[in-house]
């Protein structure tokens, strides 16, 4: 099975996280990563439209190596919905990316409803940058997951970025309550919590992502490879599970 990083940013970054497609490919080749889900960086000009098109261009140029996420700012309301639809229908992107921290909205906000409903109808996954204090706590993710049971949510960072460890319990609670949440592994420092997800909720509920270049791709890949799972289980987390989520657009291509 291929190793697929669900969560790799490219493009010029307002936040100093610039990365070119070429640089990412070099790193993927070095580490044996066959494919990556490209996330558009928020560019210095703030405009997500061109960033989405940069991702789409990379996917067109390297369809065997990339798929893409369309990123929108929910504060743009109708324009966000239009951009998302264009991302799926015209740009060939495979899922919706929401970044509550960089676009400054709460992950449980009802203003997301049109976006999430549409993604649910299309059966494309929604990846939410999770764990940002007051914006995307695990139970914010659970709230929208309850409201949109037809939509699949990929919650990054093991749903939390709480170095005190208290939110780990909230993350497990959200995962238990909401079968439509999948946990992504980037920055997730508690392997026992991830093992609990696999062993009690299902292997398909955990996927590999790096959130590089903010996080270190090699370190994040090793995070999964080091888990106390069978080789077959690790292969599922590293790629197979994501393929299942992206089946409409990606399985046909692979």
């Amino acid at each position, binding site marked *: 099975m291929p190793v697929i990083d669900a969560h790799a940013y490219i493009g010029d970054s307002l936040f100093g996280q610039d990365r070119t497609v070429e640089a990412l490919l070099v790193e993927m080749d070095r580490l044996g990563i066959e494919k990556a889900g490209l996330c558009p960086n928020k560019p210095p000009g703030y405009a997500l439209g061109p960033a989405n098109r940069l991702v789409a261009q990379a996917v067109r140029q390297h369809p065997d190596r990339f798929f893409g996420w369309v990123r929108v700012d929910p504060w743009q309301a109708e324009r966000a919905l239009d951009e998302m639809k264009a991302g799926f229908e015209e740009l060939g992107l495979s899922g919706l990316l929401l970044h509550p921290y960089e676009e400054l909205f709460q992950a449980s906000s009802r203003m997301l409803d049109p976006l999430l409903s549409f993604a649910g109808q299309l059966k494309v996954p929604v990846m939410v940058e999770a764990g940002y204090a007051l914006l995307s706590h695990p139970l914010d993710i659970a709230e929208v997951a309850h409201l949109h049971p037809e939509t699949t949510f990929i919650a990054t960072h093991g749903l939390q970025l709480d*170095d*005190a460890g*208290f939110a780990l319990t909230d993350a497990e609670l959200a995962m238990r309550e909401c079968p439509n949440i999948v946990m992504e592994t*980037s920055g997730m420092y508690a*392997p026992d919590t991830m093992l609990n997800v696999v062993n009690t909720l299902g292997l398909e509920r955990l996927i590999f992502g790096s959130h590089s270049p903010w996080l*270190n791709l090699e*370190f994040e890949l090793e995070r999964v490879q080091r888990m106390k799972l069978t080789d077959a289980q690790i292969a599922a987390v590293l790629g197979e599970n994501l393929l299942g989520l992206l089946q409409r657009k990606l399985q046909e291509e692979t």
Partner: protein
Amino acid sequence: MIYLDSHAHVDVVPALNWYDSAEKLVARMDKAGIRMAAISGYLNAPGPNPEGLKGIADAVAQYPDRLIGYARLDPWYDDRCVETLDAAVRDWGCRGVKLHPAHYTLYPFGQETVKLAHRAGELGLPMLFHCGDEIMCLPYQIDRLAEKCPNTTIILAHIGGFFSGEAALDVAERRPNVLVDTSEIPFPGMVRKAVDRLGAEKVLWGTDAPCCDIGHEIRKVELAGLTAGQERQLFCENFARLMGIPLEADDAGH
């Protein structure tokens, strides 16, 4: 390489969903080749568990060559807290203090914590602070304590957490009595930045085990691009110096 872990835990607290026995930690230390670890509990003393410090002492008694006890304390108890520290050293053999101010909700620079820090300094004990992205645990808050207590060694855990790393380095750079530890955060690059800004002698290696994977915490330092000498300082020499642990010349890889 000899590995001395400056930040680990032993405690069983069902209410917080944490079940980390001494046996569990030492088994993981054995697997990862860790010689010794400093441990603290998850509850503060005096506090809801009067047996808490005894639990640390029991763990150290069970593994006297492997574990070093830190007293996790609650400065809200003021003089009684200072008395508890004295008893922890006298009766239970504790050799450091662990504080998590968000857990008891006090300003780190408040008079109660200053009093405790002065006493720790008199006893020659380091104070390990949970330091991250929570109010009461922020680097610039702990900075005010470090200024008031220059004779007390203060350790900022997690190099400030997911978002407060630069602030933690600011504080450790300007306060001779402030160190940082590398535990839990997913940033090999921040380890490198800490060494570059502070000097390797002010950076302790820690794991926050058993929550975090010990081997992965080692890899974080290995991926930081340090010299072999700097790695030795982080993995063993700095903590050995702090705790007075003798290292044979061969132990440190010389």
